[in-house]
């Protein structure tokens, strides 16, 4: 009897510790951006994580460019020699992102010989800010020496980059994490605008226009550290870019998606559409501004 009562008490104590109200951890991007604009919002770690994680991978725009039929252009990329100019943790983090954007482009175009060099540069910068431990160079070199292994190289490069980002955030160094993704995004936008301004291409031009969705998120995330000079200047730069994006409109037309099963797999077809209106003049302004911003930050001498 005594034992039975004791067990019941223990059970009750444990269940009360583990139970509780149901909790939904949802970050609504639209609401977050609206609140951020109204007040000087303090960003919670969860919101910062949501912002950082939602930024697209650089291999996506690289794929758009390649599928549009454009040749690989090494001259657009940030020179590896510029790495010696990056002396502060902020410079290093931002330019790890820039080189990461270049690496996405290099990998999609299967330039394995360049991938190893860029990875070396990234690792050296990453070591300086104590996040270089994710690069297994023996494996990377082995894959890069075999063109058939490009898919694996893309996979490994992306996994390592993501690990660096996750590690930074786990170490409460989200300031460097947001700089890394901003660097990657800036480089992707720079490459896209360089290609688009030389060649009239609807897909790439529209992609540039859709970056309106991202720039607000980046400004919000970076503004959390606006007491730091580096961040303050970067926010000012991006706000000048945002001024052009404010004139670009995106419209949505909602329709229910369709689900089909193909070979036992679930395939969803989006029946909604989005339309972006971006003029040649706006594209040109964005191209000029991002070139200036990038030039300052990569220290393009």
């Amino acid at each position, binding site marked *: 009897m005594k034992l039975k009562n004791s067990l019941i008490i223990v059970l009750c104590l444990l269940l009360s510790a583990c139970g509780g109200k149901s909790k939904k951890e949802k970050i609504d991007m639209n609401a977050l951006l609206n609140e951020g604009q109204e007040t000087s919002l303090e960003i919670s770690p969860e919101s910062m994580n949501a912002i950082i*994680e939602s*930024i697209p991978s650089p291999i996506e725009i690289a*794929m758009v460019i390649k599928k549009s039929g454009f040749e690989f252009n090494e001259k657009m990329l940030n020179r590896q020699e510029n790495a010696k100019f990056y002396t502060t943790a902020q410079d290093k983090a931002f330019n790890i992102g820039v080189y990461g954007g270049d690496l996405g482009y290099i990998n999609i175009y299967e330039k394995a010989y360049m991938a190893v060099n860029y990875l070396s540069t990234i690792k050296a910068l990453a070591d300086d800010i104590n996040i270089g431990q994710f690069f297994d160079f023996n494996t990377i070199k082995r894959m890069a020496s075999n063109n058939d292994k490009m898919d694996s190289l893309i996979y490994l490069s992306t*996994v390592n980059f993501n690990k660096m980002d996750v590690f930074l955030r786990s170490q409460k160094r989200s300031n460097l994490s947001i700089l890394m993704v901003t660097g990657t995004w800036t480089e992707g936008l720079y490459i896209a605008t360089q290609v688009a301004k030389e060649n009239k291409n609807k897909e790439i031009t529209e992609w540039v226009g859709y970056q309106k969705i991202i720039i607000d998120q980046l400004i919000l995330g970076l503004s959390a550290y606006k007491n730091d000079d580096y961040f303050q200047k970067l926010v000012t730069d991006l706000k000048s870019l945002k001024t052009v994006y404010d004139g670009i409109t995106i419209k949505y037309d909602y329709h229910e998606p369709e689900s089909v099963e193909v070979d036992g797999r679930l*395939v969803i077809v989006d029946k909604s559409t989005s339309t972006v209106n971006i003029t040649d003049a706006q594209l040109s302004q964005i191209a000029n501004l991002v070139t200036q911003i990038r030039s300052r930050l990569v220290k393009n001498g």
Partner: protein
Amino acid sequence: MKVIRDIKILLISGFLLGSVSVFGQCDADMFLDQCANGLGTYNYIKSFSIKVPLHKRINPECSYVFSKGSTYLLIACDQNLKGGKMILSLYDREHNLIASTFNEKDNRYYSDLRYSCETTGVYYITASFKGSKGGCGMCILGFNRE
């Protein structure tokens, strides 16, 4: 003697109940490489670790900007030990449900879903475990472009 015996039983009971109520070893990263094989011809973008303790009604959510013209692949990868099977659900920018890897009508699970995107915007991916049992898993995101 009886008191000591009772205390021993209490301690053992507490330990056993404690180890059931907290989801033990959950290292989702351990099976990233294994599950990433499911990408096939899709390019890996990122993965999201999902860890939900037993008896906790939490639906972890992550967001990502999908681009028009790309097809995205979401792979549901879970350890499926003590917990229920992991279910991934995809929502659009207005949080309208687009699809889920669990079909309630047919009681059918899918290990992945492919989404052919025509609307650039923020999308939300939530994870849950069948029967609110909690669990450990990973959502792997890949993309392809025609």
